[in-house]
């Protein structure tokens, strides 16, 4: 990443700040004991108001029945309702989606990055940029394009290909398997370029000396890949698969763009979609919060497993 800039012009800006005798309060505000806390205060406020309070309130809400002007505690009744066939459908859809996206969005970008990093490919920058461009689109616009490409009509791109291969046209949005295919391909299309960049950054960190030493020892291209490249990619592979897993459990838009809030036989229902459907759609905020708490526990357990498996504290983000 970029290096810090140079501060050649700073002396000029210093001369402008003329020395003044500060009063006591200003001196207090400027003391080195106070200044850091003032700088950090936006974070403290946002943490308390926008993270800690909603987290606690969410847990409280999950034990409540919430109707306009009438909130009462109902113990574990929301949780008893959570484990129903719709939730299991949402959870199994989400899990399958996570497994498929992790496999695709780790292996394919890794392979593409290794090839892009080799001396074999020309015009690398153009290819890297083209692969990255889908990441600039929103899921809604991307999904709209995929809806039109995978429309039920015989004349859509997807069905033209399918017909060309000698098969019948497919109602893409109405079969369980093709519904999953649509969500996975949309997510993969949008994220592949970003993940390629992660792998490329790591590949460029591997020192050339290792490969030179291997050359002297007469290692083949495959041996260099197997014993130098792949082991060095381990940390970034763990990172990429971790954020893909977390993003997978947060998935909502990829389903919404194809079916809004209700899909035939719930073939597109996801856990977050279920929270939205119950909490906002049905206005059952207590029940929605209970699903949210269960989702939090699932993600928490996965993070712990990940932490143990890798032995390091890994960061996840959007």
């Amino acid at each position, binding site marked *: *990443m*970029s*290096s*810090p*800039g140079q*501060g050649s012009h700073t002396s000029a*800006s*210093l001369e402008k*700040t003329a020395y003044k005798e500060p009063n006591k309060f200003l001196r207090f505000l400027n003391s080195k004991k106070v*200044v850091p*806390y003032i*700088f*950090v205060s936006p*974070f403290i*406020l*946002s943490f308390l108001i*926008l*993270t800690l309070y*909603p*987290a606690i*309130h*969410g847990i409280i*809400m999950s034990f409540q029945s919430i109707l306009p002007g009438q909130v009462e505690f109902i113990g574990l009744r929301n949780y008893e309702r959570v484990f129903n066939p719709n939730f299991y459908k949402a959870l199994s859809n989400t899990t399958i989606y996570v497994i498929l996206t992790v496999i695709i969005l780790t292996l394919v970008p890794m392979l593409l990055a290794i090839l*892009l990093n080799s001396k*074999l*490919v020309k*015009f690398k920058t153009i*290819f890297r*940029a*083209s*692969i*990255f461009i889908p990441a*600039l*689109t*929103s*899921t*809604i*616009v991307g999904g*709209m394009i*995929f*809806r*039109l490409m995978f*429309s039920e*009509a015989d*004349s859509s*791109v997807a069905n033209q290909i399918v017909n060309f291969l000698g098969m019948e046209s497919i109602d893409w949005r109405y079969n369980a398997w093709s519904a999953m295919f649509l969500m996975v391909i949309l997510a993969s299309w949008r994220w592949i370029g970003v993940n390629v*960049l*992660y792998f490329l*950054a790591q590949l460029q960190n591997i020192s050339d000396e290792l490969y030179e030493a291997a050359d002297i020892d007469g290692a083949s291209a495959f041996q260099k890949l197997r014993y130098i490249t792949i082991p060095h990619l381990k940390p970034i592979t763990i990172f990429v698969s971790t954020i893909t897993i977390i993003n997978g459990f947060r998935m*909502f*838009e990829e389903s*919404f763009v194809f079916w809004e809030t209700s899909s035939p036989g719930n073939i597109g229902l996801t856990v977050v979609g279920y*929270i*939205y459907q119950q*909490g*906002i759609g049905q206005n059952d905020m207590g029940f929605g919060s209970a699903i949210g708490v269960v989702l*939090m526990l699932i*993600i928490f357990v996965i993070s712990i497993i990940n932490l143990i498996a890798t032995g390091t504290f890994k960061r*996840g*983000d959007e």
Partner: protein
Amino acid sequence: MDTNKKNSGLTWVATVGFALISLIILFPIIGLLISSFRPSSDLMRDGITFSIDFSQLNMDNYMYIFQQAASYWSWYGNSLIISALTIVLSLFFSSMVGYALAVYDFKGRNLFFVLVLLILMIPFEILMLPLYQMMVGAQLVDSYFAVVLPLIVAPVAVFFFRQYATGLPTALMDAARIDGSTEYGIYFKIMLPLMGPSLAAMAILQGLASWNNFLWPLLVLRSNDMFTLPIGLATLLTPYGNNYDILIAGSVLTIIPIVILFIFFQRYFVAGLTSGGVKG
């Protein structure tokens, strides 16, 4: 001689292979571009198709959107305002926090840093219902403020700024103190300008995230004239397709400015969108 020949053959195969892959990946966007010149009724009936009647291509969808789609332009304005607010506010606050965590030694510094990492791991979707309740309670629903508020202190950005500010020359700070500058003067006049590249990367990350944000605006925006582009466009995705002209031309006009920015500021896009990881 022989190995060279073999290598150039391989290079040829790999390069053509990548050209094909790039073409496949760009195909949906090219398809969108071409389709935006097709009659919207055809588009609705056939979807995006290989069999395009090139004699039918025209500018009607764009004429319509520029002359008659007032709601589309109000979404566009909302998206611009919300993205601008998000960029300005989140850069201002997140950089302050990241900077303090990097350059000052104070009690609780490590705790704050651990909290930043912790929030990074909590999915927003889990907090959205109580946050929504809060917005309803504060009567902020259907306002720009409600959309922007949760993004103001972005943990990703705090983390990124903290990493970046760790490399800043602290000797400059001491020199400025001797000259009588306040800590705030040091920050805004000396250190912040040095953080330029990281500000650019985060402006792009936050701007793009906000431009494409969907779930939270979907919750807190109620009226059509407050919708952002993704929310507004999503309302047009009906099976009846009576607004496909706005949908398709509108999507193109949503993507194009971003792609142009990307071409000019590629380096910052790359730094911004991969800021979640790589190196520490």
